[in-house]
């Protein structure tokens, strides 16, 4: 019998090892799997490379993981936002590496990684500093830059509904990187607000087919990052 449901966030992340590459879903706070990230902080794996659009907010979630010195390198498109304080400070001190990738290139590199495409050519970033040193090629007289697909050992993803096969439905703009990250990680770990019986999700509307997912944990009432930031909370909880 196939059953990808695990009982707790800590069980879900227990296999993450030092030096792993981890994709973390979310755009700003929408879709950020805060409970899984906090379980990873408790778990303690370090020397991680994290691929995520941003670098977290305040002192919770991804920001707390970075603050806990578990992340060696960030691959992202927009490392600073209004509430991002942890990453900028470490970056200025030279204590964390950054690979800056245009947002669409990041999404496509992840998609390609998951789809078995080692590299592709894109017009994005041509003639900018982000294309320096990269292979270029002309197609129909127009220059394109070569970008590599990215894979990861793990993905931490938040969704709305899942079943035991790992079929997923997302919530509004919290979908963002979740589906492609599930594809690109050898071990996609998903927190779902609700786990339903197989057959309850209409096959016509499945967003992420279960084949891309390894583990699902139900987190019925996920925390609100915004609210935690308004309350100036920190993880580990004081």
């Amino acid at each position, binding site marked *: 019998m196939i059953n990808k449901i695990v009982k707790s966030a800590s069980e879900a992340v227990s296999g993450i090892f030092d030096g792993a590459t981890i994709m973390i879903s979310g755009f700003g706070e929408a879709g950020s799997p805060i409970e899984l990230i906090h379980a990873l902080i408790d778990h303690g794996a370090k020397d991680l490379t994290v691929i995520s659009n941003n670098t977290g907010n305040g002192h919770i979630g991804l920001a707390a993981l970075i603050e806990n010195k578990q992340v060696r390198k960030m691959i992202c498109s*927009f490392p*600073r936002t209004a509430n991002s304080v942890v990453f900028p400070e470490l970056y200025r001190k030279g204590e964390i590496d950054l690979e800056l*990738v*245009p*947002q669409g290139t990041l999404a*496509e590199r992840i998609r390609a990684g998951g789809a078995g495409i080692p590299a592709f050519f894109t017009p994005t970033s*041509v003639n*900018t500093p982000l294309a320096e040193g990269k292979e270029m090629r002309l197609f129909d007289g127009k220059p394109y830059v070569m970008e590599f697909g990215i894979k990861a050992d793990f993905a931490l993803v938040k969704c709305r509904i899942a079943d035991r096969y790992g079929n997923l439905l997302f919530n509004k703009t919290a979908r963002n990187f979740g*589906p492609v990250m599930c594809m690109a990680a050898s071990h996609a770990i998903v927190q779902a607000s609700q786990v339903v019986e197989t057959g309850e999700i209409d096959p016509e509307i499945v*967003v992420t087919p279960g084949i891309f997912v390894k583990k699902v944990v139900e987190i019925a009432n996920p925390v609100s990052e915004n609210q935690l930031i308004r309350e100036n909370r920190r993880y580990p909880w004081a």
Partner: protein
Amino acid sequence: MGLNEVKGWNKEEMAGKIACDIPDGAYVNLGIGLPELVANYIPEGREVIFHTENGLLGVGPSPAKELEDDELINAGKKPVTAIKGACFFHHADSFAMVRGGHIDICVLGAFQISENGDLANWSTGEPGAIPAVGGAMDLVEGVKTIIVFTQHTTKNGEPKIVKECTYPLTGKGVVNHIYTDLAVIDVTENGLFVREMAPGVDFEYLKSCTAAELKLY
């Protein structure tokens, strides 16, 4: 300054001008900040679909405070609503819309725009600054028409329209139209053509605020 102070258009008037130039049926991406104003001024009777690159086609107006949803936001991470007929999609699909030439118009801000339509809007290249690019480079390469919505000069009065950008580029030769508080300017193969000037602005004054060659139609 005194009596001779030139005021030009205010931000709402600039947004209104851009909105009037967006045709019925267009798919439009609005950048973070000033460009977001454009959505408020689409003339009655026109149907325009707003795209936000974090995964929504059919962005509606801002919700009332009590209806804000942390998981329904725009690229600026502000709460929005979804119109009837809206759809959500993942990031790779969203940027396929962008890069694949499916979005008609993108309105964005600028640090500098050059005579040949180069745009710099992501980094001032200052040491110690945290580089952040987001989707700007994808948008300028992929969207059919790129509109820049900006003040004509910086807060210190330095021209933003220049012969060549000194800041790192977002894209080369990508800008089609520039809407500033002083003028509307078209970027063409033959240079920068002034389509319209704000009330009280004459060509000589406009040239004095611009560090690139301007032409009149």
